[in-house]
């Protein structure tokens, strides 16, 4: 059982953090370099952060970057820890963590569906949720839903409508 501050101290000591932030009670977010993410997650997993809730991805189009967020939780510390890293938007490639958490395989496939990020080492990158999608991945910020909908689907015509 560590408190938030003890945890931050520990992480500062053992990991090469880019930044660390105490968001609120029982919530901490840290940022790691690309190369150190897998080893960092490995370290955290061996320090009771065994629960991988999910992997989120955010498209920061203005910075030309994707941000990957790994949400971890420790049942001992009762702290929710978000581990973040940023990758280049053009390259859109990252390493898989399926050897640490098998379930990440599907989270990564999901991110591949919606953001088009490829994960090296994850051999199955088929479409999971979408089917026959041949536009730019839908969750990217430059994908315009309205335009796509106007093009693909027909709106119902009502009487008295233009």
């Amino acid at each position, binding site marked *: 059982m560590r408190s938030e501050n003890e945890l931050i101290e520990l992480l500062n000591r053992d990991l090469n953090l880019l930044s660390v932030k105490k968001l609120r009670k029982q919530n901490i977010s840290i940022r790691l370099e690309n190369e150190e993410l897998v080893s960092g997650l490995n370290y955290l997993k061996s320090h009771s952060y065994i629960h991988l809730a999910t992997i989120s991805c955010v498209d920061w189009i203005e910075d030309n970057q994707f941000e990957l967020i790994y949400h971890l939780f420790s049942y001992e510390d009762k702290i929710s820890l978000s581990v973040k890293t940023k990758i280049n938007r053009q390259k859109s490639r990252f390493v898989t963590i399926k050897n640490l958490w098998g379930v990440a395989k599907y989270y990564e496939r999901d991110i591949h569906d919606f953001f088009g990020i490829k994960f090296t080492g994850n051999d199955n990158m088929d479409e999971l949720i979408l*089917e*026959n999608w041949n536009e730019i991945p839908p969750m990217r910020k430059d994908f315009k839903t*309205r335009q*796509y909908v106007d093009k*693909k689907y027909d709106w119902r015509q009502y009487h008295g409508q233009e």
Partner: protein
Amino acid sequence: MNNKYESNKWQEVINWVQKRSLFMLHYCTGCGAIELPPTMTSRYDMSRFGIGPAATPRQADILLITGYLSTKTLRRVIYTYEQMQDPKFVMGFGSCTINGGMYWDSYNTIKQLDKYIPVDLYIAGCMPRPEAILEGFLKLKEKIETGNADGYKKYNKEYETYKKNQEKVLGEVKRRQ
């Protein structure tokens, strides 16, 4: 569209029978399916009206499209619809099937069900209450009795139009019987 129904005693008997026994395909395509269990079970009990669930498309008469249809489901719905035996009826269920409803600007749901398969009846609401569903079934029965529920005939007649619309959204649709 010529909906005029020819007065034919034999056809009348057939309609009368069909109206009184409807098997509804148990296929939950969307969130509207959550109001089907109450409709089917003790409180509202649609079996009073001779409507019962059927397990497979071959046995079913009614295809209920319970809510929004993603394109992935639309493909399965088309297969399912084509597996069903005539006469078959389609009920669009909830606002999403009428004009997209809540998901009017979603990239993955269709906005208008009757472009892709013929719909005999729509039930509005998000989501329709069990009473509305029962009312819808009763309306459908009326339509069957008067011979107006002829979507399946329309589908056969205007097959090419439907096919074109389906392929616009889905790409190729493989058809198997």
